[in-house]
């Protein structure tokens, strides 16, 4: 009878596991569980060993840790590319050349206004047009550069917030480690806690590159792929952020060491790549272009004579580098220095009607005045660079997405809940339960028959 009772309990437990699987069939991150039924140790009856029934020893969660690690790595890669593409999409929107409303139109209008001035160098409307074109050009440079900085600052804030999220997750993982260890020690299976931890680890790998090592005691220690410790046992090492005094951008510190540039995956990497590499490089190209234009225009202006025969003065406010050899800030601060159209030095010899200097200024468009290139060629390279940054990351993103889809499919085929399978199991355990119950009732009948034999009727 106790054999049957044990069986009832075991089948009931198994049905409980099935029920839990069915209940969680749509829970993200849930790994199906299987009841582990075990023969009870046999007892010796006379000379024969007789089985003593069944036990549900434990519940096993079906998971492939190696596969999970691969998924986390690819997830990390995909989030990195995703956050990079999102950031750089904002940047490429600033250079709206496909609609013909980018800097190119301002550059062309500017030089064209001087070509136009050369046909009639004393015309006030044409002089005014050249001055206005200069102001528009300077304004466009300044605005584009400021918008770049705004995007960069937005990314910096995202970096700080992401680090906070990383710390929250690592704290949770450390906490779960502790609970898992306790439950494991007590001989139970911490399946649901492990699922929770898997979910946290996947979320963590969304944010930063992770390497996870599972210990025998069930805890998971987490480092970045470059070896910075994030979680060890029930301890998490929180990352900190600190603004760099020179750039104002936040560095990421682990135990006081700057690890910003060694982060190799997750949203953080994408944000940092856009913030510290792509945007500064675009910004510096823009600065070089602005500085080249300012300097060449001013030189040419100073070589000529204004409408009143006076020596020409700077067209744009001259750019003074804050750091020698760097043009940083040239685009943001670009403004026109001239206040009156008559100050434009169209004449090369002081004769009012002479146009040679206006022609020379218009011809700067075809001169190698920006790092050995014409302004147009330099700008078109910049456009190519920005477009390539996004398009390369986008195609990589697609490739990683396909890999990730494959891996998820594989993971689901191992850990996903199949209702057909659960139904089969349910029927199986139900039948076993029914049979065990029948055994009890048969034994009961036997016993009552036996008892009845002695009851006076």
């Amino acid at each position, binding site marked *: 009878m106790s054999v049957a009772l044990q069986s009832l309990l075991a089948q009931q437990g198994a049905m409980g596991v099935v029920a839990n699987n069915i209940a969680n069939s749509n829970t993200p991150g849930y790994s199906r569980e299987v009841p582990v039924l075990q023969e009870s140790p046999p007892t010796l009856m006379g000379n024969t060993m007789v089985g003593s029934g069944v036990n549900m020893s434990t519940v096993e969660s079906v998971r492939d840790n190696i596969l999970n690690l691969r998924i986390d790595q690819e997830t990390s890669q995909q989030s990195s590319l995703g956050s990079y593409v999102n950031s750089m999409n904002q940047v490429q929107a600033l250079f709206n*050349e*496909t609609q*013909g409303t980018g800097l190119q139109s301002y550059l062309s209008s500017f030089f064209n206004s001087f070509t136009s001035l050369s*046909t*009639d160098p004393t015309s006030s409307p044409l002089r005014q047009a050249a001055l206005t074109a200069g102001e528009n050009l300077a304004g466009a440079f300044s605005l584009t550069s400021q918008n770049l900085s705004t995007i960069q600052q937005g990314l910096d804030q995202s970096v700080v917030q992401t680090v906070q999220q990383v710390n929250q997750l690592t704290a949770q993982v450390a906490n779960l480690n502790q609970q898992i260890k306790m439950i494991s020690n007590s001989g139970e299976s911490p399946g649901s806690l492990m699922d929770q931890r898997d979910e946290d680890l996947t979320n963590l790998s969304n944010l930063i590159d992770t390497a996870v090592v599972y210990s025998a005691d069930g805890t998971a220690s987490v480092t970045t792929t470059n070896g910075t410790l994030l979680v060890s046992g029930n301890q998490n090492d929180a990352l900190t952020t600190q603004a760099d005094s020179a750039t104002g951008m936040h560095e990421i510190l682990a135990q006081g060491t700057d690890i910003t540039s060694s982060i190799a995956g997750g949203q953080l990497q994408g944000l940092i790549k856009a913030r510290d590499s792509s945007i500064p490089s675009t910004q510096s190209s823009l600065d070089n272009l602005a500085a080249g234009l300012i300097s060449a225009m001013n030189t040419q202006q100073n070589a000529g004579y204004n409408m009143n025969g006076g020596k020409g003065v700077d067209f744009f406010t001259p750019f003074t580098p804050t750091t020698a050899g760097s043009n940083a800030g040239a685009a943001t601060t670009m403004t026109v220095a001239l206040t009156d159209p008559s100050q434009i030095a169209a004449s090369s010899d002081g004769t009012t*009607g002479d146009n040679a200097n206006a*022609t020379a200024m218009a011809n700067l468009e075809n001169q190698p005045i920006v790092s050995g290139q014409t302004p147009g060629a330099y700008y078109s390279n910049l456009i190519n660079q920005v477009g390539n940054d996004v*398009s390369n990351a986008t195609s990589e993103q697609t490739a990683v997405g396909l890999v990730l889809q494959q891996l998820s499919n594989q993971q689901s085929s191992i850990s996903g809940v199949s209702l057909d399978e659960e*139904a089969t199991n349910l029927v199986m355990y139900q039948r076993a339960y029914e049979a065990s119950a029948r055994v009890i009732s048969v034994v009961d009948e036997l016993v009552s028959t036996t008892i009845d034999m002695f009851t006076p009727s």
Partner: protein
Amino acid sequence: MGIRVNPNLYGIILSGLQTNTQLENQALQQVSSGQKLNSLSDDPAAASSLVNMRIESSSDAQYLQNISSLTGSLNVADSALSSVVEALTSAQSVGVEGANGTNNTSNRQALAQEVQGIQQEIMGLANTTYNGEYLFSGTATTTQPYVEDATSASGVTYKGNDSSNSVEISEGQAMPTSLPGSQLFSNPTTSVFQSLQDLYTALNSNGNISGATTEVQNALNYVSTQQTFYGNSVDRLNNAQTFLTQEQTQLTETEGNAVDVNMATAVTDLSQTVTTQQALLAAGGKISQLNLFDYLPSS
């Protein structure tokens, strides 16, 4: 036991739908904007060459504008010079008439008056303006080139300079826009104003009238030769205009190839994604509607 397969088929359908929706968006954007190049990353190389082409076509448009404003001033200058040639021709006839021995003093003085009128007419023509600027004063376009001057042997003084402006009419091709009066109306051996002054003096004083008439004849020939500059320039402008217009047409076409979408292809792409979307949705509707539980007795 068979190989366990992914029981969650919706996940596969979902990612298929997502990929397809992305393609559909792209196709829809192309059809609605008429452009295949909607952001730089769609085709960075095309975006970059688009910038170069736009710079070039924008310069071309400016050169064309230069050409049309130059054509105006060149035509005005050309017709002014034609009038000068005409005036000199009549001065020459006056000279021939004056050289005729039958003239008396009062006849000659009347002819001298006529020459003086011609002198003034030519001076007016030499001071022709276009858009408020003097056409024949070199680059000193705000200075009246010829003023009367009794102390000068020719009766006038040239106040302009000997330079001339050049304007680019296509990339790297500059063209002088005018000739200074000092070159147009005189050279070391011939001078329009000197010859007229000499004829005037000769008629008044019954001097060497035929000699002065020859001078006028030489001046006439000289100005006619100089005038060809303007005719040639207008021809040059016309040629440049033809070239630039052609280049612009070509650039517009190339720009279009880089940017504009082939509508037939885009619409086909779009309808293809729609078909795929429908197929995926239909497949999604068909899968997993049943499982084993549906067949178990619900006692």
